[in-house]
């Protein structure tokens, strides 16, 4: 089962990418292929999650190419990666629908977007994200990153306008730097241990002197820190993300930084359980939260404001990671899942605002609550969720982190607890300010936006539907918070136990014979 299913979240989107490229002249077919495949991948991810959760170890692994695990590349589905897969593919699937809506909606402007490029690249992006979650090999994790980054470079600069190219340069160069540092970290790691298999590393790294362990850890954490946008490695993000087309920004904001967070969680638990840098992580978490949210308050553009809240809330996840307790990791995992969905939803809602009002400059918005009540609801609910208003999922994640911090009880942990609630308050201030202006403030000049949307066209309905779907999913996080948080908690236990992952990779009966069975003889 796992043998077949685990590679599919990568294999299927890549096959579909090839197919859509071949079908470059048939946009309708491209669309069908993309939707069907991403939908299927979402379904597969759910099955993988259910399977992993039900399995004895809580983790299942398969080896690519049927090689012995320690030689080849393994793919692992444990509770953490399965949760990330499900959330990640939910986002890519939902945003695809939104993008289809918007793409067609934009067509009325008269210039068709280069769809022949959008679908394959978007599928490659999905494959990269999934691969990063599945990889049980440090280099393969790097490859996953490269795949998703290469696709993201293309998507970010879609349309090639001046601001996008400028933002693209910042983004590409920073990402390349991060990849280079990642490679340095991989080099260090292989030099010291002679392997890159994560499970093997888990067994071997402990034998290294503590300082050497920290050396490897530092290189990897800086690399992931750039990707995850942890202060002071975060400034590139608000300068690049908001310029992309809305659905792209939504996926980037929701998903890509979280791949970095996922990688941090993975290496912190599996490779470096000694906790040498936990204090440092907590400090950076605090700085990330506060600097990020102050940035959000200072913004005049809705998408840029949201990008800063994104940076700020990465701090919450790092907070949980830095605590390095079960409760801390559980909080971080829940928060990651919550934040992926909520940030995506908010950017999609911002896209609706842009669509309805023709701008995301906050000073040029106004009166949307009256003109577009549906958009208002679709913005308000996720915005309050982001600000951690109970009983929405943002509150639940935050509460988990607060409880975890209180459990640790050190002065630094309490400082983080204080910083968390302060950030929460300032987030509320930032989003409520925007709400006051964009939705309640009366429109000053009547001629500016052609605010009469008229009867909703089917494409717009698709955009609104996708956003509403995400909103419903985020509400589901509240309704089913009990089992979901329980899952996050079990995932955190697995992470700290480390054994399930290692056993799943290295100590399971090999699937097929280790030597190729010669099949057939006749040509």
């Amino acid at each position, binding site marked *: 089962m796992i043998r077949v299913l685990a590679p599919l979240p990568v294999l299927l989107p890549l096959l579909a990418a090839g197919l859509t490229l*071949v079908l470059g002249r048939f946009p309708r077919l491209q669309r069908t292929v993309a939707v069907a495949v991403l939908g299927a991948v979402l379904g597969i991810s759910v099955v993988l999650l259910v399977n992993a959760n039900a399995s004895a170890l809580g983790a299942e692994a398969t080896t690519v*190419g049927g090689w012995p695990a320690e030689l*080849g590349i393994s793919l692992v589905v444990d509770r953490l990666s399965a949760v990330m897969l499900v959330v990640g593919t939910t986002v890519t699937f939902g945003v695809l629908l939104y993008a289809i809506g918007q793409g067609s909606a934009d067509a009325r402007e008269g210039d068709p977007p280069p769809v022949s490029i959008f679908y394959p690249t978007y599928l490659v992006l999905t494959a990269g994200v999934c691969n990063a979650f599945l990889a049980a090999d440090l280099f393969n994790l790097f490859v996953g990153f490269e795949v998703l980054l290469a696709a993201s*470079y*293309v998507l970010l600069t879609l349309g090639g306008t001046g601001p996008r190219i400028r933002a693209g340069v910042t983004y590409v160069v920073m990402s390349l730097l*991060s990849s280079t540092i990642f490679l340095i970290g991989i080099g260090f790691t292989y030099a010291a241990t002679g392997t890159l298999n994560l499970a093997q590393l888990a067994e071997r790294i402990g034998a290294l002197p503590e300082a050497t362990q920290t050396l490897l850890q530092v290189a990897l954490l800086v690399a992931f820190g750039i990707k995850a946008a942890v202060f002071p490695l975060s400034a590139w993000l608000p300068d690049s993300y908001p310029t992309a087309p809305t659905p792209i920004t939504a996926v980037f904001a929701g998903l890509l930084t979280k791949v970095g967070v996922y990688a941090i969680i993975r290496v912190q638990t599996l490779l470096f359980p000694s906790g040498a840098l936990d204090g440092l992580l907590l400090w950076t978490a605090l700085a990330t939260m506060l600097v990020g949210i102050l940035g959000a308050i200072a913004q005049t553009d809705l998408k840029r404001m949201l990008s800063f809240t994104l940076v700020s809330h990465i701090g919450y996840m790092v907070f949980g990671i830095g605590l390095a307790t079960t409760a801390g990791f559980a909080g971080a995992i829940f928060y990651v899942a919550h934040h992926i969905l909520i940030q995506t939803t908010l950017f999609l809602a911002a896209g609706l605002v842009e669509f309805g009002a023709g701008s995301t400059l906050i000073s040029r918005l106004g009166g949307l609550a009256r003109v577009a009540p549906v958009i208002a609801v679709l913005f308000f609910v996720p915005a309050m969720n982001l600000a951690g*208003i109970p*009983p929405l999922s943002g509150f639940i994640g935050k509460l988990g982190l607060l409880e975890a911090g209180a459990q640790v009880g050190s002065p630094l942990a309490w400082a983080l607890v204080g910083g968390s609630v302060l950030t929460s308050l300032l987030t509320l201030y930032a989003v409520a300010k925007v709400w006051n202006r964009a939705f309640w403030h009366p429109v000053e000049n009547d001629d500016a936006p052609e605010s009469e949307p008229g009867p909703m066209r089917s494409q717009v309905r698709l955009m609104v539907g996708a956003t509403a779907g995400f909103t419903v999913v985020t509400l589901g996080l509240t309704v089913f918070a009990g089992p979901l948080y329980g899952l996050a908690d079990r995932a955190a236990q697995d992470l700290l136990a480390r054994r399930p992952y290692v056993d799943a990779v290295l100590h399971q009966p090999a699937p097929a014979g280790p030597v190729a069975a010669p099949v057939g003889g006749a040509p």
Partner: protein
Amino acid sequence: MLLLIAAQLVAALLAPALVRWWGPRAFFALALVPAATFGWLLAALPRLTAEGAVREQVGWIPTLRLDLDLRIDALAALMALLVTGVGALILLYSRWYFADEREGLGRYAFSFMAFAGAMLGLVVSDNVLLLYVFWELTTIFSYLLIAQYYDVRSSRRAALQALIVTTFGGLAMLVGFVLLGAVSGSYQLSYLVAHPPQGGVAVAAAVLLLLGVLSKSAIVPLHFWLPSAMAAPTPVSAYLHAAAMVKAGIYLIARMNPQFAALPVWRWSLLVLGAAGLLVGAWKALRQADLKLLLAYGTVSQLGFMAFSFGIGTPQAALAGVLLIVAHALYKSTTFLVVGAIDHATGTRDLRLLSGLGRRAPLLALAAALGIASMIGVPPLLGFVAKDAVYEAARGTLPAGPGPVVLVAVTFLGAVLTVAYGVRFWWGAFATWDPDRPEADRARPTHAVGRGIVAAPLLLALAGLGAGLTLPWLGPALARAAGTPELEVGLWHGIGLPLLASLAGLLGGAVLVVALRRRGAVRALVPEHLEAQAQYRRLMRGLDRVAGEVTGATQRGSLPFYLGAALVVLAALLLWVLLAGGRPALPGGWEPWDSPAEAWVAVLTVIAVVAAARSRQRLAAVLLVGVSGYAMVAIFVMRGAPDLALTQALVETCTLVAFVLVLRKLPKTIRHRHSGRQRARRLLIAIPLGVLVAVGGAVALGMRTAPAISERFPGPVYDFGGGRNIVNVILVDLRAWDTFGEISVLLAAATGVASLVFLRRPTGSPPQLDQNARRRTALPAQHRTFLRGGLAVAAENRSVVLELATRVLFPTMIVLSVYLLFAGHNVPGGGFTGGLVAGLALVVRYLAAGRYELGEAAPIDAGLVLGLGLLFAGGTGAAALLTGGAVLQSTIWTATLPLFGDVKLVSALFFDIGVYLVVVGLVLDILRSLGAELDRREESAGAAPNAGGEPAR
């Protein structure tokens, strides 16, 4: 109970639809929900009395110990009755208040009902986290309700201010709860009250909780949001700002009092801040001309009074506090509703303009009179009973508290002021003033005060009277709610201090009213700049400024700055680790190089890199960067890795071609030079970082604990992978998953190049000679020949030598590439190198004869090649899955063919073909985009001015 709360929330969701169908009459239906809850509570009272408390528990998030844990004891029941009873009446009232309003009514109905549900949940929660959930929900819905008329600036500002202030307090309270939970191991409210923590934790928790209480219940100094919140519609004020929401904090005090009353910080805070609120609020109420604002400050005053009362700390004081809660809920909602009715009928709330309303609306005046009488403590109304109880409590005090004299004096002073503003309210609203002043100044009633709109305030006012009169029956219940069943609540305690003080207070108030009328307007006592409101504004402005400054400092918008920051972080951390780790151990048998040639290569690389950084010529810089690439080729060769060397050389060449194609569009020289300081700064980062990384690598290598995994590769690579070229088997089998990912990177890169160059034009195959051009070449179409595209190139741009060489090179290279592809599994080569060679063959043809030749050589869309390549590679993986192997697992077929002998075919070959295609596709894509398309643009740009004649010089 849970069902009833849910019912309110469901009703909230249905409310907009109901309002759309039925208009304001929908409020009748909506009022049924809280009314039914009220009835249920009444019916449950006997059970409650018998059992002490009714509980209900449903699990929600057990991991976080956040469960739907409800408990109705006497206090909760009392609060719930108030919340639902007053709520139902105000909904009834809304039917008439909003009789001629349609816009936003659905929104109002939703928020109001949801608020009612949240408030109900708040008072019956037995889990402090759940309590916080409802607490914050009331904040959010109050935000929406305050800004009901959001077109008005003050409404929006007031809503935001209320939101921020109360959420601030709420979050502090949440931290307090988490602290309590962490220390005592439970979030159950009843458990926490029964097991109070000790020492510093208790103090910290008490302070945090107090912040929540102060902000929610508008107690000085966090009271300022409440008067601003009067921008809300009056029914909202009557409910949120009188009966329900602002009582949440007081309710929490009442709940926590048994636990915290022993703490001086808790009691003193309540006493001091409560007294301050009582006096400041009442004083400011005296100064208001707007009836609603007057009531708002009156509320601030009364809420302070309640806090003060609880702060005394004795059981009697707790009882007095509970009585105040009930009395205030009844009379303050009455008076607010009266103001709403006045506003509705006359269009003003200014007591200087109103006159003669008492005669026109006697019932309304009666309701107001009863309300005010209760407020100022006229017997036998409930307000009198409550005030009486406070005096009673003030006489006895705890050891570490202020003396009775102070307490009684404060209460008395508050009472005098309350009487004064109470009388001023009623007089201002209903009396007939200054008959000699011209009528024009007065507000004219736009319509008579309707009967319906009077019903709710009158009922509430009568409830206050009834409660006072039925005290013998009601008293024990109220005492139980206060947790002091042993105390007696009575209307008549005989002639003693309380009664005398009450009467003296009434008298004093009357004197004050008269005195103030003589002296004219009441002047401000507190300077404006000390006002909490102004402080809040200043704080928020400061916040915005700090946010701007911090962001300006960190968010420079400069890529070099960001790069520098990241590199400095890395360097600092590496330095710290290497220093902290003691003397770095170098690997055993450390040698600087294996052969001196390596050193020379290294030196060459360094020189090339430095020269590249210093070069002013773009092309030169690119070539110099290429030198370091070729230096790697040399290293690979010296290390005995021909395969890697070959690949590296080909990659380097292709990269150079791509670079050169792009450089055509850029200026030849790099004009922008960095200043010496900038360069020094960069060197200061670059050189140490380089050294640190090198040292780090050496240290890591020196710590090697286990043999490298690659040492185990050779055997399985041949047995299981079926190939003798270990590099190729690693690429297409052992680590094929990596390769699969990397070719999708190539694919993405190719689409990116095409996307940027073609932008919105559809991409396609490279340009081919169209029929006209073919005819011009005077060659029959079926005459297949090389370099026909060159015929479209101007003669002076053609090179005969190059064309001739190409005729030889192209087929050779294609054959070589195919050979490399098929032989790669066993000898140096493989799909990647093969693809590169084929790509270079295309490059050669393009360079020899221009863009049309490219189309002639490869008349297909690059996307098709790329897509097919990925499909091939992925298909190989999928096929392995379908045949029961692991993904990308190789199958080896052996056969004996005539002529060829024993032939071994490994399925990884198909994967390699995919790689080959993707690489060819990439090169083709780059050529068609950066080559052919840019050529076309240059030509059309060059042709355009010519078409218009000679360009003017």
